[in-house]
């Protein structure tokens, strides 16, 4: 971590950093994400709770819909997949800033010489990794439980692309508002209130794309393209709004002015 801090500080001060701000932000995001993942690997709290929750949801879906006819399954399986992602995502996002909230380190992170967008990208990446880990349980589970979900196993590349794209938009929008709630000492119940209406468009695109994948329609790539466009929009708006939502722009401007005066 010491190395990482030194690198981050150096990147901010060096002359190259100003010319290549995008790469610096990405590098900072990568270092922060690796740090978060390393801490997660020590106690596995989030990974284990999210995986267990996914398993429980899968068992409940299996029990509820085991009698479903094969013709109805292609309509039901996409809903099962993306509802479980929505539930697990809400659980993950309510915990993703928990460490910062418990030890009050979000403020420390915000005053560190790191681009704020890097914090956003790092947290979104960690959320994405955990969601994808949970999908590694849900997708094979659904393929085992429901014959209509066999295309998941038959077309693995398309399935991976679909799952990655679907989870990315969810992580992009969710991280912004999870951060906002963590910084405002807000109630976590509001996260679900905000999260579901906002992530519904991307989940709907993912749902329609999954249905076309299961039914073998050629429109799958079109829906995947629309889902990708939603992802880009979610990340651009999320990255743009992260700093104003988290700290407020006037505060940030006055902090910059104060820092210039000190110099």
């Amino acid at each position, binding site marked *: 971590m010491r190395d990482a801090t030194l690198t981050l500080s150096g990147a901010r001060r060096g002359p190259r950093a100003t010319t290549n701000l995008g790469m610096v932000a990405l590098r900072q995001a990568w270092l922060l994400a690796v740090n978060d993942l390393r801490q997660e690997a020590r106690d596995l709290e989030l990974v284990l709770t999210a995986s267990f929750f996914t398993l429980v949801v899968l068992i409940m879906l299996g029990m509820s819909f085991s009698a479903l006819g094969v013709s109805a399954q292609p309509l039901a399986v996409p809903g099962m997949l993306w509802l479980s992602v929505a539930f697990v995502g809400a659980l993950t996002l309510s915990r993703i800033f928990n460490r910062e909230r418990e030890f009050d380190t979000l403020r420390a992170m915000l005053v560190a010489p790191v681009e704020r967008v890097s914090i956003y990208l790092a947290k979104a990446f960690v959320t994405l990794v955990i969601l994808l880990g949970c999908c590694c349980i849900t997708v094979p589970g659904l393929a085992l439980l429901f014959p209509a979900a066999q295309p998941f196993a038959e077309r693995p590349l398309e399935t991976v692309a679909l799952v990655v794209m679907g989870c990315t938009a969810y992580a992009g*929008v969710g991280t*912004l*508002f999870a951060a*906002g*709630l963590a*910084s*405002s*000492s*807000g*109630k976590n119940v*509001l996260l679900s*209130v*905000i999260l*579901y*209406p*906002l992530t*519904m*468009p991307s989940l*709907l695109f993912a749902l329609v794309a999954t249905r076309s994948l299961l039914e073998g329609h050629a429109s799958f790539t079109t829906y995947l393209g629309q889902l990708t466009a939603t992802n880009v*929009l979610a990340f651009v*708006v999320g990255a743009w*709004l992260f700093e*104003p*939502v*988290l700290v*407020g*722009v*006037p505060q940030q401007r006055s902090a910059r002015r104060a820092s210039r005066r000190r110099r």
Partner: protein
Amino acid sequence: MNKILPFAFLGAAGMIFPYSVQLIFLQTPIEQQMGTVQKIFYFHVPLAWIMMLLAVVCGVAAGIQLRRDSKRAEAISIAAAELVLVTGLGVLITGPIWGHATWGKPWTWDARQVSTGLLWLVFAAYVLVRHYGAAGSERLAAGLAIFGAIDVPVIYYAVKIWKTTHPSTDVAGSLPSSMWAALWPALIALLLTSLALLMIRVRQEMTDVALDEAWIGLEHDAASPNLAAATGDA
């Protein structure tokens, strides 16, 4: 002037609205295919336009609030969001009534219906966050409003991008002049009512902010002599 204007708008709307109803039900010809139920178009379409306009106003005001920490922009954002809920409810009630008569089903899950429903949900979430959120959640709500405003072009272009049961956006241009003649007064009456309510609600919010500031100032003044006495004693 600012105090009188909303009531002037309400008065004007109160005069135009009965004329509009008279035009819609007594002077505009009955549509051949849909029959009398088509009359709901004169309320559904203006409400939908006003809802989208208010959502954009709310999103822009929220952006200004985030950028400049403007209390007025925040008040406009709150007022517009609440009116999006009201007009959105109107759209979501009149739409299915019309749909039931035209398509045989009140809700067909088409892209425009879903995106309108989502817009309403986003602004319902905005109002919930504003009411129940802790300190600092006003920035969170502003972010939500910006995402809500992004949904407006999606609603508009939904009929062009996806296959929907809704009529396309070109239909408005092909309406006969008798229908336009009935649509304009309804639109103006509803728009004036919405503007009046927006202005009244903005004033309420600004008064609320002024009261809060006065209360804080009063508490600060009350605490200052005690503090001075305490430091003096020390």
